[in-house]
C-alpha cells in the first residue's frame, strides 16, 4: 500500500505542483492519476520513488517513510515505466530487461534467463528479439520491453508515467488490454499517470482526478466517476457521453431477453405470425437447427394465409452484431441494438446459439435496475466508510 500524508511539493520559484495531497493506493490495485497537464500527477508519481522529494508531508510505502530508505535501494524495488520508454540504446533487449536483476547482483546467466521469461510474459518472442537493440523494435514492442524491464525483479510496486501515450491508438488499446491481463496474473500495486480519461476508466481499479494546482478533485472507481462526478470540473473532465460509457461497468446478464421472438427455420408463416402477435414484436429472429441466428424476418412480410409458406434463410435482414450476456456489458448490448436495422440485437451463448433478443424497452429497464443497484452499493460503501473512519 502507498499512502500520501498531506504531501506538498513547492518549487523554489514558488509554483506549487502538489498541494497537501492525501491519497491511499491499496495494495494489488491499479490507481490511475489523471488530469490536465500541470496538475501535479507526474510529480505525485515521482515522489513515490524519490525522483522528486516532497517539500512537506510523508509518502509511505507499506507504512515505511520512503525518505528513510536509500534512494537506489528503494528504486530497485519499484518498477518504473515511462512514455519515451527510456530503454538503454546500447544494451540488447534481454540486457535491458535484466537491468535491475544485474544491479542487485544476479549472475548474468540467471538474469538473462529471467529476461527471456519476461519477454514471453509480455508477448515478445525471445528467440528472435532477445539479442536485438531497442532501435530495431517498433514503438509498441519497445513499450512492452519497458514493462518487462520494470517487472524483472518482481517488484511489488509498479509506477507508469503515461506509458502508452506515444503509440498509435490500436497499439495503445492492445497494450492496455495486456496490462489488464498481466495485472490479473501478478496483482501489483500500480500507479499509472495519464491525461487520457478513457485510459483511466479502462485500466483503473481506482481513478484519482487532479485539478490544476495539484489538488485532488475526486478519487473513485471508474463506474462511480462516470455515474456520480462530484462537481462540474470532474463532469466536464470525464466527458459528455459518460452515461453511455458507464454502461461498460454493468454486465448484460441482468438484461431480460425476449425468447418468444426466436423461431427455428421451417416454422410456418401462420405460426410465426401468431407468435409475433403474442410477443407484440414487428421482427422475429430466425435460427438454424442448432439454434444459431440466421437473420431477422419482418412480421409485416409474413404470408399468414398461405399454409405452406415456412420461414427460410432467404430474404432475412442481417443479424448484425451479437453479444454475450454472460461476459459482455450493457454497453455492448446497447451498441449492438443501436447498430441493428431492426433496433434489436441478439444475445448468444458461448457456442453462438441465440438466447434471446433485446429491445430499447428491455435495455431501458436493465439500465435503470443496474443504476439503482450501483446507487445503493455506493450508499452502503459510504456508510461503511463513515463507520470505519
Amino acid at each position, binding site marked *: 500500500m502507498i499512502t500520501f500524508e498531506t504531501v506538498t511539493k513547492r518549487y523554489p520559484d514558488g509554483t506549487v505542483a502538489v498541494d497537501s495531497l492525501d491519497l491511499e493506493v491499496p495494495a494489488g490495485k491499479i490507481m490511475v492519476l489523471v488530469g490536465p497537464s500541470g496538475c501535479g500527477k507526474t510529480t505525485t508519481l515521482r515522489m513515490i520513488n524519490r525522483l522528486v522529494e516532497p517539500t512537506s508531508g510523508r509518502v509511505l510505502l507499506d507504512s515505511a517513510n520512503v525518505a528513510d530508505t536509500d534512494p537506489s535501494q528503494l*528504486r530497485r524495488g519499484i518498477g518504473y515505466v*515511462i512514455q519515451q520508454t*527510456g*530503454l538503454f*540504446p546500447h544494451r540488447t533487449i534481454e540486457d535491458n530487461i535484466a537491468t535491475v536483476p544485474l544491479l*542487485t547482483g544476479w549472475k548474468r546467466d540467471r538474469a538473462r534467463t529471467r529476461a527471456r521469461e519476461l519477454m514471453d510474459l509480455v508477448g515478445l518472442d525471445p528467440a528472435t528479439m532477445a539479442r536485438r537493440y531497442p532501435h530495431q523494435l517498433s514503438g509498441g514492442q519497445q513499450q512492452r520491453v519497458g514493462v518487462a524491464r520494470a517487472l524483472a525483479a518482481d517488484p511489488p510496486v509498479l509506477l507508469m508515467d503515461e506509458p502508452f501515450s506515444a503509440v498509435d491508438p490500436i497499439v495503445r488499446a492492445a497494450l492496455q488490454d495486456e496490462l489488464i491481463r498481466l495485472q490479473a496474473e501478478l496483482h501489483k500495486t500500480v500507479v499509472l499517470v495519464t491525461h487520457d480519461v478513457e485510459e483511466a476508466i479502462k485500466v483503473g481499479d481506482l481513478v484519482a482526478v487532479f485539478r490544476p494546482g495539484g489538488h485532488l478533485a475526486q478519487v473513485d472507481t471508474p463506474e462511480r466517476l462516470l455515474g456520480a462526478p462530484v462537481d462540474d470540473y470532474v463532469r466536464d473532465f470525464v466527458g459528455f457521453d459518460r452515461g453511455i460509457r458507464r454502461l461498460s461497468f454493468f454486465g448484460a446478464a441482468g438484461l431480460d431477453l425476449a425468447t418468444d421472438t426466436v423461431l427455428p427455420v421451417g416454422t410456418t408463416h401462420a405460426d410465426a405470425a401468431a407468435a409475433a402477435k403474442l410477443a407484440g414484436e414487428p421482427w422475429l429472429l430466425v435460427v438454424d437447427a442448432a439454434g444459431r441466428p440466421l437473420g431477422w424476418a419482418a412480421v409485416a412480410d409474413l404470408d399468414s394465409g398461405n399454409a405452406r409458406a415456412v420461414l427460410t434463410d432467404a430474404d432475412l435482414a442481417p443479424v448484425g452484431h451479437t453479444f454475450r450476456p454472460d461476459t459482455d456489458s450493457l454497453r455492448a448490448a446497447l451498441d449492438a441494438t443501436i447498430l441493428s436495422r431492426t433496433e434489436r440485437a441478439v444475445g448468444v451463448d458461448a457456442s453462438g446459439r441465440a438466447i434471446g433478443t433485446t429491445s430499447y424497452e428491455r435495455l431501458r429497464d436493465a439500465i435503470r435496475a443496474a443504476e439503482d443497484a450501483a446507487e445503493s452499493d455506493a450508499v452502503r460503501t459510504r456508510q461503511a466508510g463513515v463507520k470505519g473512519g
Partner: protein
Amino acid sequence: MQWSWIPQNWTIIWQYTLDNALLGLLPPLIGLVISLPVGIACVATRWLYPPVLGLANAVYAIPTLAVFVVLIDYTGLGNLTVIIALTLLSLCVLIPSVVDGLRSVPEPVRQAATAMGFTQVRRMIQVELPLAVPVIIAGMRVAVVSSISLASLGYLIGVLSFGYFFVDGEQRDYPTEIYAGFALTILLAIVCDLLLVGARTLLTPWARGRRAAASTMTARPAVTGVPS
C-alpha cells in the same frame, strides 16, 4: 621526386614514423584522461563549462611554438615539452566532445537509469559514458589528426618527427624529402583515423545500422570543437 630516396632512407623513415605516431597519439590519450573528469564536472555543474571552455580555447589560440618556448624553461628541449604542449592543445577539442557526448544521452534514458536504481557513479560508467562514445571518438579523431600534424613542429626544438624531412629538405634544397614528409604525415593521419573508426565500431555494436542516420547529427558539434 627521386624514388630511390625512400629505400635508401628506410631506417629513418620508419624511426620518425614511430616518433611522430607517438607524438600524435599520446597527447590526445592523455588529453582524454584529463577531459573525462573535467567534462563530467562541466556537465554536473552548469557554471563550470563556459570558463573551462574559454580557457581551453585561449590555450589553443596561443601559437604552438610559443607554447613550446614557455614550456622549455620548465621541461627542457625534449619529448616531454612537445607532449605537454600537444596535450594542452587537444583539450580544446576533447573537453567539448566529452560534454557534448554526455549531453547527447537522451534525458528519458538518464531518468530511467536513475529510476531503475543506478547510483550516480554506476550510471555514468554503465550508461552515460558508453552512450557518449561516438561523440567522444569523433573528437578524438580531430585531436589525433591535428596532433600528428603539429608534431612536426617539435623538430624545431630538437624532437624527432616528420618535421626533420621538411627542415632538412628545405636546407638541402631537396624537394623529394619534403614531398615524402608530406605524404607520410597524411598517411599516418589516415591510418590512425581508421584505427579510431575501428575502435568506435568495436565499442558501439549497438549503433550499427542507425549510425548512418545519427552520426551526422551527433558528431558535428565535436568535430568543429564549437560548444553547442
